[in-house]
C-alpha cells in the first residue's frame, strides 16, 4: 500500500492555461459582480472579454505541440486549439452582443457573464478532452450553464419554458450518453480515447456492448447537435431563450458538441466507421430535410434560424457519413467555421432589431429594413446568402468541401439529397431578404452607434463570412492540419484531401 505521491502525475501547465484563464475569469466576474448593481454590468462584460482575450492568446501558444497531458485526460493538439479558438471567439462575440442587451433587460450581469464563461470553459474542455469522462464533464458544465442562461430572462414566461424544456430533455439525454460511455467502458475496459482506438483496431469491433454504447453515445451527441429526431427541443429553446443566449447555443454549443462528437467518432471510432456511418447517413437525411422543410414555414425569425441550425447540423453529418474519406474531417471543420460566423452574425442582427422595439421577432417585422438601415440589411442579406451557400461566401465553400468529401466516398445520393435541401433552404433564406428589400414596411432601428459592441460583433461576423469565403486557403489549411493532428497523422498534403 504505497502512499500517494504527487510526482507520479505528469503535470503539464500549458494545456490547461487557457481553461484556467476562462475559469478564473468566470470566478473573477462573479466576485466583482457581488459588489455591482445589475445596471452597471458592462464592466463585467469587459472583464469577461479580457479573460477571453487572455485565453485566446494562451491557446495560440498551445498550437503545434501535439501531446497528451495528464495521462491522456487532456489532448493538446491543433484540433483542440482550433475549436478552442473558435469557441473563445464565439463566447467573446456573444458577450459583445450581450453588453447592451443585459443592461437594457436589467439582467444580473455577474451571473450572466459568469455563466457564459463557465459554458465556454465546458466547451473548451470538450474540445480538448482526451477521455470520455472529461468530455462528459465538459458537456455537463456547458449544459448546466446554458440551462441557466436559457432561463435567464426570468420575467419572460417563454424564457422559463425554454429553460425547463431544454433542461428536462438535456438531462434525459445525459442518461443515454452516460449509458453509452458505460457500455464502451465495459467493452473496452477503459475510458481513455487512445486506448479505445487501440482496442478497436485489435479486433472486438463486433462486441455488442461496444456497438450499443456507440449507438447510445451517438444519440447523446445527436441531441446536443440537434439531429433529427433528437432535435425537438431546439426550436423551443432557441425561441424562448434570450437572443444572445440563443446565438451562443446555436453556435457555441453546437460547435463544442461537434468537437466532442468528431473527436470520438471520426478520430477514435474511425476504425469501426463501417458500424456507424450508415446511421449518420439516415440521420443526416432526416436532419437536413426536416430542418429545412420546417424552417420553410416558420414566421418567427428565431425559430427559422433554429431550424436552419438543425439543417446545418445535417450538412455536417453528411460530412461525417463520409468518414472514410480522408478529406471529411478538414471539410467539416471548415464548414463549422463558416457556419459559426454567418449564424452568429444573423443572431446579432436579430438582437439589434429586436431591441429596436417590442417585436415578436417575426420575419414580417423586417420589412423595409433596407430603407431604414441599409447597412444592417446588407449584413443580414450577406449572412442569409452565406447560410444558403451562395459563392463566394464562406457557406458555399464549406458546402463545396463537404459535398466533395461525401462524393469521394461515393455517397452520390446523399449529396444529391443535400443539394435539393440547399434549394429548399434558399427559399426561406431569401424570404428574409425579400422581406427586408422588396416588401414595404417601416421598422425603426435605434442608432447603432449607440451600441458599438454589437456593431463590432456584426462587423467581425461579416468580415469572417466574406474573407474565409474568398480566401479559403488559410482556414482550410488550418482545419485540415487540426484534424490531422487529432488523428495523429502528420499534416497530410492537401491534394490528398479532395476526392
Amino acid at each position: 500500500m504505497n502512499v500517494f505521491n504527487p510526482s507520479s502525475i505528469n503535470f503539464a501547465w500549458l494545456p490547461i492555461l487557457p481553461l484556467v484563464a476562462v475559469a478564473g475569469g468566470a470566478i473573477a466576474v462573479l466576485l466583482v459582480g457581488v459588489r455591482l448593481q445589475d445596471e452597471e454590468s458592462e464592466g463585467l462584460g469587459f472583464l469577461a472579454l479580457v479573460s477571453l482575450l487572455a485565453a485566446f492568446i494562451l491557446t495560440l501558444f498551445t498550437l503545434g505541440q501535439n501531446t497528451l497531458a495528464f495521462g491522456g485526460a487532456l489532448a493538446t493538439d491543433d484540433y483542440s486549439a482550433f475549436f478552442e479558438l473558435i469557441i473563445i471567439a464565439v463566447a467573446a462575440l456573444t458577450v459583445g452582443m450581450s453588453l447592451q442587451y443585459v443592461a437594457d433587460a436589467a439582467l444580473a450581469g455577474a451571473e450572466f457573464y459568469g455563466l457564459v464563461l463557465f459554458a465556454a470553459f465546458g466547451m473548451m474542455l470538450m474540445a480538448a478532452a482526451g477521455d470520455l469522462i472529461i468530455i462528459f464533464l465538459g458537456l455537463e458544465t456547458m449544459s448546466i450553464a446554458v440551462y441557466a442562461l436559457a432561463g435567464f430572462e426570468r420575467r419572460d414566461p417563454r424564457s422559463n419554458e425554454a429553460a425547463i424544456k431544454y433542461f428536462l430533455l438535456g438531462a434525459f439525454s445525459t442518461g443515454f450518453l452516460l449509458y453509452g460511455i458505460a457500455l464502451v467502458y465495459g467493452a473496452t475496459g477503459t475510458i481513455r480515447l487512445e486506448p479505445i482506438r487501440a482496442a478497436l483496431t485489435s479486433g472486438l469491433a463486433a462486441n455488442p456492448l461496444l456497438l450499443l454504447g456507440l449507438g447510445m453515445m451517438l444519440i447523446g451527441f445527436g441531441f446536443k447537435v440537434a439531429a433529427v429526431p433528437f432535435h425537438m427541443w431546439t426550436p423551443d429553446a432557441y425561441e424562448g431563450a434570450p437572443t444572445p443566449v440563443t446565438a451562443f447555443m446555436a453556435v457555441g454549443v453546437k460547435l463544442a458538441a461537434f468537437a466532442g462528437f468528431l473527436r470520438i467518432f471520426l478520430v477514435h471510432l474511425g476504425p469501426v466507421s463501417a458500424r456507424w456511418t450508415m446511421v449518420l447517413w439516415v440521420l443526416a437525411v432526416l436532419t437536413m430535410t426536416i430542418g429545412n422543410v420546417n424552417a420553410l414555414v416558420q414566421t418567427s425569425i428565431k425559430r427559422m434560424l433554429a431550424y436552419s441550425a438543425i439543417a446545418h447540423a445535417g450538412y455536417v453529418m453528411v460530412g461525417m457519413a463520409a468518414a472514410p474519406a480522408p478529406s471529411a474531417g478538414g471539410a467539416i471543420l471548415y464548414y463549422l467555421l463558416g457556419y459559426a460566423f454567418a449564424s452568429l452574425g444573423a443572431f446579432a442582427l436579430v438582437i439589434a432589431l429586436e431591441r429596436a422595439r417590442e417585436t415578436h421577432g417575426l420575419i414580417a417585422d423586417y420589412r423595409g429594413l433596407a430603407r431604414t438601415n441599409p447597412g444592417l440589411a446588407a449584413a443580414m442579406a450577406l449572412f442569409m446568402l452565406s447560410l444558403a451557400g451562395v459563392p463566394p461566401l464562406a457557406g458555399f465553400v464549406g458546402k463545396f468541401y463537404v459535398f466533395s468529401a461525401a462524393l469521394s466516398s461515393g455517397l452520390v445520393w446523399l449529396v444529391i439529397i443535400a443539394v435539393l435541401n440547399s434549394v429548399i433552404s434558399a427559399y426561406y433564406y431569401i424570404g428574409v431578404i425579400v422581406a427586408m428589400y422588396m416588401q414595404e414596411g417601416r421598422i425603426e432601428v435605434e442608432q447603432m452607434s449607440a451600441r458599438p459592441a454589437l456593431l463590432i460583433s456584426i462587423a467581425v461576423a461579416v468580415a469572417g463570412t466574406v474573407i474565409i469565403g474568398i480566401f479559403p486557403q488559410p482556414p482550410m489549411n488550418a482545419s485540415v492540419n487540426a484534424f490531422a493532428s487529432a488523428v495523429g497523422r502528420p499534416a497530410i498534403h492537401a491534394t490528398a484531401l479532395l476526392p
Partner: protein
Amino acid sequence: MTTPIGYFMALSAVLFAIGVAGMLIRRNVIVMFMSIELMLNAVNLAFVALGRRVGSMDGQVIVFFVMTVAAAEAAVGLAIIISLFRSRETLNADELNLLRW
C-alpha cells in the same frame, strides 16, 4: 454462487427503462426530474457492474463524478423549476406550450 454481472446489467436496464417511462407518462415536472435521477442511477449501477467485470476502479470513480453532476443538475434544475413556478404557477408539463410550431 455469485450473481453474474449480466443480471446487474439487466436490472440497470430495467431501472433505466422505468425511468424513461416515468419521463414519458408523468405530468409533474418534478416527478419527471425524479425519473431522470432514476435513469442516472441505473447507469451508475451499470458502471459499477461493468467496472467490476473489467476489474478496474474507473467505473466507481466515474460514478463518483456522475453523482456530482447529478447534484449540480439537481441544483440548477430545481432552480429552474422554482422560477418557472413563480412565473407560471404550474408545474404541469401540458401547460408549458407557449413555445410550439
